[in-house]
C-alpha cells in the first residue's frame, strides 16, 4: 500500500479531471444564476430563496387586478396596493434554486416527453434487433444450407460499415419515403445489427448440437427452437448486448439530429438538451444543467448498480 | 548444484494455514517428489522454494546460504510449470534462450537492433545459440526450434519447457506437476525420460505431483504431504511397505490398502472376534486398525481368518482384483489374485481369506503406526 502511493497520486489526478465536468454539471443544477455568475456557493449553493423573474413578469398586476384587490387593502391608494400585490407575486414566485432549476427543466420543455421518447426508441430498437438477429444467428450457427458461408461473409463485410457514415443516403431514402420526423425514422436504420448477428452466432456456436437435436426429437419447429431453446440459453449474452444497444442509442445525438427537425414531440433526450441550449440565455444555465443531469443520470445509476454487466456490455465490441 | 534445506517453513493465507511447519533436507543430486492430494500445500511449498512466494516463517537455504529473502530471479533455480508457461510470441529457440539472455546479457545488449552494435553482443549471442541448440538436441526438439508454442503438441511444449529449464545450470530443478496436462500414454513415456534426464544431469530435482505412480517410479525419496505437513519422507519402497501413518498407507498404493478394525481383549489381538495372537502387552490401546495390502491377502479353503462373498471383479489380464464383502460386518476388502485363480472367484462365490501377520500393519485409532504391537504379534505367530 505505501509502495503504491505514487500510483494512487497519478490515478487520483486522473479522477479529478474525469469527474470535474460531472461535478460542475450537478453543482450548477443546484445553484442560482447569481451564484453561477459569480462562481460562489460551493457544491450545493447557499439555497437562498430566489425570485423567478419570468414568473413575476408573467403575473405583473394590471389595472383590473388592483381594482379586484382594493377590498383587501381598504383605504390604501393605488400605488401601495400595486406594491403590495407585487410583493405577493414575488413571494409566490420565489423558491429555492434547486427547485427552480429542476422545475424549469421539466416545465420549460417537455422533458418527460423527451425521456419517454428515449425509452420508446431505445426499447423498440433493441427488440427489433433481437427479433431480426436471433433467427439469422441461429441459422448461421446451427443449420447447414447452401450459401451459408456466403451469408456469413456478407455479415463480416457489413461489420465494416459504421451506420453513422452512411447517414446521408439513409436520410435521402427516408425522406423519399416521407418518413422523416417519425418514430420510424429514428428506429429503422438501427433495426439490423450486424454486430448482434455476429455476436449471437459466435455464442450459439458454443451451444451443443445435442440440445437442438433433443428439441427436434421433442417435436419443436426450428422457429420454436430459436425462441424456446436458444433464447433462454443466450440470456447472459443478450443482456450484455442489450446494454450495448441501449447505451448507444440513448446517448446517440447524430442520427436524431438528422431525421428529426422541429417536431418537439419526437425529440430524444439529447435533442431536447440541444434545443434548450439553443434558445437559452445566460440565466438559464441552472435549468439546463438540471436537464443534462436528468438525462445522464439513468444510465449512470444503472451502471453503478450493475458495473460488471455494463462494462461487459459496452466492451462487447472487444470480442470481435 | 548444491543441497537444499527447508527449515520449519509455515505459510498462512489470512486465516487459513497452508503449511504448518515443513522441514526437509534435499541432498545434492537427489530426485525428491512432493506428493499428496490437492490442497495439501505441496505446490505452495515448491513456490516458496522457488521464491515466488514468501513463507510466513521459516527459512530456505541453498548450498548452505540462506535465500529466504532473495527474490526468485536471484536464486538460480529452474522451474517447469504445469501450464508450461511458454512465451506465446517467441519461437521455441527464443523461449529456451530467454533465461540465458536475461542473466548473461546486459539490458543494453538485449535491445532490438541497437543491441547488436554493443561490444560483446555478437559472441554472447553465438554462445547462447550454441547452448540452446545443445539443450534442444538433448531433448530431441532441434527440429522445432523455429516454431511457436501455439504450433506444438502438448508433449512438445512440455519438452520446450524442460529445455528452458535445463539450458542453464541451476542449483536445482523445480517441476510443478509437469505431466498432468499430457495424455496417459505420453505421460508414461515422459516419466521415463525425466528420470533418465535426472540420471544424466545428476542435478537436484524437486518434483511436485498428485500422482503416486509418478512419485513411486521416478524418485529417490518421496515426501508425502497432507494438510500442510510432511507425513513421511523416505525411499519409495519404504513409503509403500513401511508407512508411518495410516494416511500415507492409504494414499500410496493402488488399489487402496484394506483397513480392518482390530481390538485388544486382555492380551489378545482380535479381528471380528477372531484371535490373531494372545501376547499383547496391556499398555497397547483397546481399539486399533489393521492395514493389509491387497497382495497380502490369500485365498484359502482351510481355516480362513476372514470369510466373505465376491461382489465385484476387475480382470486386468496380468492380475485380478476381487472385491469381497466380509460376512462379519459387510465391509469390503480388495484381494489381488492371479488370473489362474479366477474360477474360484465367480460373482457371489463364498471365499475364505488368510493373511500373514508379518504383512499386516497396525495403527492406533488416530492413524499412527504401532510397530510395538506388530512386533509382539509376529513373535506370537512364530511361536504358534
Amino acid at each position, binding site marked *: 500500500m505505501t509502495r*503504491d502511493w505514487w*500510483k494512487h497520486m497519478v*490515478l487520483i489526478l*486522473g*479522477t479529478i479531471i*474525469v469527474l470535474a*465536468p460531472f461535478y*460542475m454539471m450537478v453543482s450548477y443544477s443546484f445553484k442560482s444564476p447569481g451564484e*453561477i455568475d459569480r*462562481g460562489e456557493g460551493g457544491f450545493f449553493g447557499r439555497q437562498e430563496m430566489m425570485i423567478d423573474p419570468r414568473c413575476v413578469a408573467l403575473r405583473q398586476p394590471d389595472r383590473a387586478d388592483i381594482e379586484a384587490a382594493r377590498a383587501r387593502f381598504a383605504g390604501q391608494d393605488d400605488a401601495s396596493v400595486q406594491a403590495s400585490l407585487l410583493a405577493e407575486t414575488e413571494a409566490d414566485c420565489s423558491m429555492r434554486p434547486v427547485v427552480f432549476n429542476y422545475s424549469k427543466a421539466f416545465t420549460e420543455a417537455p422533458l418527460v416527453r423527451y425521456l419517454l421518447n428515449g425509452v420508446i426508441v431505445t426499447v423498440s430498437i433493441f427488440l427489433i434487433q433481437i427479433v431480426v*438477429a436471433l*433467427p*439469422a444467428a*441461429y*441459422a448461421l450457427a446451427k*443449420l*447447414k*444450407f*447452401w450459401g*451459408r458461408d456466403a451469408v456469413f461473409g456478407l455479415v463480416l463485410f*457489413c461489420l465494416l460499415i459504421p451506420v453513422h*457514415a*452512411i*447517414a*446521408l*443516403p*439513409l*436520410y*435521402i*431514402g427516408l425522406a423519399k419515403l416521407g418518413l422523416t420526423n417519425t418514430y420510424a425514422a429514428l428506429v429503422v436504420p438501427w*433495426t439490423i445489427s450486424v454486430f448482434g*448477428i455476429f455476436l449471437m452466432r459466435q455464442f450459439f456456436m458454443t451451444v451443443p448440437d445435442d440440445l437442438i437435436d433433443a428439441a427436434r426429437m421433442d417435436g419443436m419447429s426450428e422457429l420454436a427452437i430459436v425462441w424456446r431453446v436458444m433464447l433462454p440459453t443466450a440470456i447472459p449474452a443478450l443482456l450484455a448486448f442489450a446494454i450495448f444497444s441501449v447505451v448507444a442509442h440513448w*446517448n446517440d445525438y*447524430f442520427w436524431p*439530429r*438528422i431525421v428529426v427537425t422541429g417536431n418537439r414531440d419526437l425529440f430524444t433526450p*439529447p435533442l431536447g*438538451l*440541444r434545443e434548450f441550449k439553443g434558445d437559452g440565455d445566460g440565466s438559464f444555465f441552472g435549468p439546463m*444543467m438540471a436537464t443534462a443531469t436528468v438525462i*445522464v443520470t439513468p*444510465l449512470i445509476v444503472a*451502471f453503478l448498480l450493475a458495473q460488471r454487466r455494463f462494462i461487459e456490455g*459496452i466492451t462487447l465490441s*472487444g470480442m470481435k | 548444484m548444491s543441497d537444499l534445506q527447508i527449515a520449519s517453513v509455515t505459510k498462512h493465507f489470512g486465516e487459513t494455514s497452508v503449511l504448518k511447519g515443513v522441514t526437509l533436507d534435499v541432498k545434492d543430486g537427489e530426485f525428491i517428489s512432493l506428493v499428496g492430494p490437492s490442497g495439501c500445500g505441496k505446490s505452495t511449498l515448491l*513456490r516458496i522454494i522457488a521464491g515466488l512466494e514468501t513463507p510466513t516463517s521459516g527459512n530456505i537455504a541453498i548450498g548452505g546460504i540462506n535465500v529466504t529473502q532473495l*527474490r*526468485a530471479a536471484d536464486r538460480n533455480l*529452474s522451474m517447469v510449470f504445469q*501450464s508450461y*508457461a511458454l*512465451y*506465446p*510470441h*517467441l519461437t521455441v529457440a527464443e523461449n529456451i534462450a*530467454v533465461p540465458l539472455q536475461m*542473466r548473461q546479457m546486459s539490458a543494453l545488449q538485449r535491445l532490438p537492433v541497437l543491441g547488436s552494435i554493443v561490444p560483446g553482443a555478437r559472441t554472447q549471442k553465438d554462445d547462447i545459440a550454441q547452448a540452446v541448440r545443445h539443450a534442444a538436441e538433448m531433448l530431441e526438439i532441434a527440429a522445432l526450434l523455429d516454431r*511457436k508454442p*501455439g*504450433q506444438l503438441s502438448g508433449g512438445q511444449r512440455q519438452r520446450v519447457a524442460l529445455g528452458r529449464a535445463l539450458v542453464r545450470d541451476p542449483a536445482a530443478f523445480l517441476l510443478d506437476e509437469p505431466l498432468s496436462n499430457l495424455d496417459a500414454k505420453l505421460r508414461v513415456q515422459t516419466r521415463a525420460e525425466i528420470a533418465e534426464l535426472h540420471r544424466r544431469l545428476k542435478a537436484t530435482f524437486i518434483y511436485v505431483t498428485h500422482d503416486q505412480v509418478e512419485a513411486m517410479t521416478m524418485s529417490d525419496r518421496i515426501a508425502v504431504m497432507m494438510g500442510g505437513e510432511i507425513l513421511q519422507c523416505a525411499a519409495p519402497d519404504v513409503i509403500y511397505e513401511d508407512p508411518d501413518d495410516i494416511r500415507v498407507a492409504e494414499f500410496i498404493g493402488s488399489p487402496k490398502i484394506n483397513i480392518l478394525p482390530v481390538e485388544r481383549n486382555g492380551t489378545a489381538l482380535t479381528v471380528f472376534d477372531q484371535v490373531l495372537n494372545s501376547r499383547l502387552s496391556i499398555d497397547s490401546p483397546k481399539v486399533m486398525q489393521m492395514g493389509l495390502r491387497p497382495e497380502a491377502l490369500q485365498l484359502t479353503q482351510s481355516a480362513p481368518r476372514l470369510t466373505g462373498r465376491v461382489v465385484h471383479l476387475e480382470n486386468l489380464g496380468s492380475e485380478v482384483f476381487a472385491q469381497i464383502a466380509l460376512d462379519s460386518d459387510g465391509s469390503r476388502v480388495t484381494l489381488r489374485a492371479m488370473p489362474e485363480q479366477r474360477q474360484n472367484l465367480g460373482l457371489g462365490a463364498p471365499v475364505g481369506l488368510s493373511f500373514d501377520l508379518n504383512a499386516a500393519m497396525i495403527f492406533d485409532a488416530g492413524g499412527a503406526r504401532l510397530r510395538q504391537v506388530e512386533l509382539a504379534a509376529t513373535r506370537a505367530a512364530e511361536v504358534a
Partner: protein
Amino acid sequence: MVAIDPSLAADVTKPKADNRQARTGWGLAAPALILMFLILLVPIIAAGVLSFTNYSLGNPSFDWVGLQNYERLFTRSTYEKMYVATFTYVVTVVPISVGLGLGAALLVHSLGRIGDIYKTIYFLPVMATLLAMAIAWEFMLHPTIGMVNRTLEMACGTWFEVIPFFADGCAEGFPLWLGDRDYAIWVVCFIGIWQGFGFNMVLFLAGLTSVHRELYHAAEMDGARSGWERFRLVTWPALGPTTVFVVTISCIRAFQVFDTIEAFWPQGGGPNKSAYVMMFAIFEKGIQQNLIGIGSAITMLFLLFVMFLTLIQRWLVERKVHY
C-alpha cells in the same frame, strides 16, 4: 410393416432433409439479409452513384457531373481544412487515449481490488451522454465564468507566473478556448480523450486479466528482475491483439467525432473552420445545405478511410494468429 430398401431410403431422405434445412436456414436468415441489403448495402451504392451527380432533395431531376464533386474535395480550401481538422483529431486522440488507457489499465491492474474504484470512475464518461458532457465542458471552458479559467486565475500572483502561459494569461486574460482558433481543435481533442480513454482502459484490463499468471512466474524464474523486463517479455506481447483492436476502434470512433463539434459550433465547424471534421462536413453539406452530391462524395471518402483501417486491423490480427 412395409420393408424399405435401406439404400433407397437413404437416397431419398437425405437430400430431402438437406432441402428442408436449407429452406428453414434461408427463411430464418431472410429478414436479416433483406434489412442488411436495404439499410447497409443499398445506401452505399446510392451514395456512390449520387456522388457523381448534383442531386438535391426536392429537385425533380439531376445532372451527371462526373468527378466534379471529388475534384472539389481535393482542390477547395474548405476541404483542406476538413482533412487537417479530421486528421489532427485522429492523430492526437488515438495515440493519447490508447496510451492513457494502457497506462491506467496497468496501474489499476497492479492495485488489485482497490483499483476497481478507479475503473468505475474512469468509465463514467463512456456511459454519459456525450452531448450533455460537451455542454458541461463548454461551461467549464467559458472564458469568464468557466471553472477552468477561474482555476487558472488562482495561479496569478504566485510563482506559477514564471511559466509564460500563466504570465500571458494573467496579463491579457486566459484563452477563449472554444472561441480561439489556435485552441479550438485541441479542446475538442481533449474532450475526445477524456471521453474515450476509460473505454480503452477497460479493454486493456480485459486483456491483462487473460494473461496467464504462470507466465509472470516463469519470467521471474528466467531472471526478469524489473517490472519493465516483465512488461517487455510477457505483458506487451500478450496485449498485442488487444492493442491492435483498441487502436482500430479508437480510430473509427475518432473519425466519427460529431457531437462535441456540433454542440460547440452549430454553424461552421469552429473558429475559422479549424474543427471542421468529416462527419460535420457531411452533415452540413449534405443535410443542412442539401448538396447531396458533395455530401455523398465525402461519405464515400469516409467509408474508404474506415474500411481501410479495419482491413489493416484484420490483417494484423491474422498475422498473429499463430499464437
